[in-house]
């Protein structure tokens, strides 16, 4: 495919991923968060396959398949099961209200554009237009982790941060070596399992997964 079409498609995919990130800040219910994460991972897997096709790199197809299996099938299923068991409360009083967090997210994406200007000036890759969007997605994930009280939302925010980092690696360097990528997937999966155990413990101790309750442990 021509370079211009490849550049447009990859940037389009990165924009769609960022929009799903905004859904995470806008919707309150954990189920909507999990669905947004799953759709975002679908787009990410398609992007991996696209870059693999455009650069004739077979390894990226394997990474796309592993990404699909892990982040589209296994993790959302796991998260939905977790949500069914413990995620009964919606985000009633987050540290930031929805409108404020969306505006801050917009400011963060602007900041991402400013922060990646040196990279854009130097990079020659056709996918470089999407790099600020990937950076913005990472910041959005951090914002979700920092500003939400429900542990489940924080977990999904962290996973979205992972997605943003994977997207940045894809757009910035056409992916990282296969072994490293698989190692990262294993890390994320183990992280999810550990976090899940913690969520169950919090729920057993406090009858809710509001992480502000953990402050009670201080006294």
């Amino acid at each position, binding site marked *: 495919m021509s370079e211009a079409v490849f550049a447009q498609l990859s940037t389009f995919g*990165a924009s769609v991923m960022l929009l799903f990130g905004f859904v995470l800040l806008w919707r309150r219910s954990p189920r909507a968060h999990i669905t947004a994460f799953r759709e975002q991972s679908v787009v990410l897997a398609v992007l991996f396959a696209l870059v693999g096709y455009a650069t004739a790199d077979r390894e990226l197809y394997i990474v796309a398949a592993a990404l699909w299996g892990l982040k589209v099938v296994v993790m959302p299923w796991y998260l939905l099961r977790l949500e069914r068991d413990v995620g009964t409360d919606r985000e009633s009083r987050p540290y930031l209200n929805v409108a404020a967090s969306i505006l801050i997210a*917009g400011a963060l994406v602007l900041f991402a554009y400013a922060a990646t200007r040196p990279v854009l000036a130097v990079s020659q890759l056709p996918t470089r237009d999407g790099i600020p969007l990937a950076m913005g997605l990472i910041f959005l994930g951090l914002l979700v982790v920092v500003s939400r009280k429900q542990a489940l939302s924080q977990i999904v925010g962290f996973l979205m941060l992972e997605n943003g980092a994977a997207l940045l690696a894809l757009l910035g360097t056409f992916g990282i070596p296969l072994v490293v990528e698989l190692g990262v997937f294993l890390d994320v999966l183990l992280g999810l399992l550990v976090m899940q155990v913690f969520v169950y413990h919090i729920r057993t101790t406090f009858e809710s997964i509001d992480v502000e309750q953990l402050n009670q442990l201080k006294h």
Partner: protein
Amino acid sequence: MLILQPALALALAPGLVGLIRWLKARLQSRRGPPPWQPYAELRKLFGKEVVVAHSASWLFRAAPYLVFASAVVVTAILPLVLAPGALDGIGDLLVVVYLLLLGTFVLALAGLDPGTAFGGMGASREMTVAALAEPTVALAIFGLAIGAGSTNLGQIVLQTLRTPILAASPSHLLAFAALFIVMLAEAGRLPVDNPGTHLELTMIHEAMILEYSGRYLALIEWAAWLKLLIFFTLLANLFLPWGIATTFAPGALALACLALVAKLAVLGVILAILETRIAKLRLFRVPELLAVSFVLGLLAVTASFARV
């Protein structure tokens, strides 16, 4: 040309709303009124007598004409069927935004004028929504204007015609999303405002026009339908301008009319399906939705700066 575009818009607007209502009825397993019902409504209202409250002032009588006139002028400026329009010297994005806001402002004042409770409530709600939505209209189209190098709407259309690949760029997509959400807010559609509601406490636009009757109501309803057509045209012709005429040739103009009708019908179908699927948002949630659209517009501007 000054006459063709407004006449075309005035003729199409009731049909568009009729189509959307008919589709919504069918999707809800009702038969619904036929698509030409709004035309019959207009004819009926123009024949009816006007009843004006005692407490109403000159503003109440003047407002329908002002609102209608502002909407008609916008349709003359907009790239409806011709890209560099006849009024191209003033066919600017900011003029369009200003005229739309002028109509909203006058209507809000007219809602306050008779001194009824529902009118005041509708007016305050409308101003809240407009205050949050208007900057996004300007911002979303501004994202396109940066790429085109001019805020003239005709120039923006020509730029997209010249470089078709631009239509898939992130700034265009983000601007489309932002403008779509703002269209829902400004034209008074679900999830912001239910146009078919009869419960006054849920009304925004209808609450302001509760006191109107006869030809005044006809003009205001027509202007509201025109506003929907205007936003649909912005969505269709700024982002997918193929089919629009760039010369005065009658063949090109006829093709442009057909293309416009087709695009409006597609957007009408999408809106009907969307309105059937979602529920009206509670009023305190509307600023959240409009914040999302504002940030999308902001990102559209940023993306077009980054590209240029």
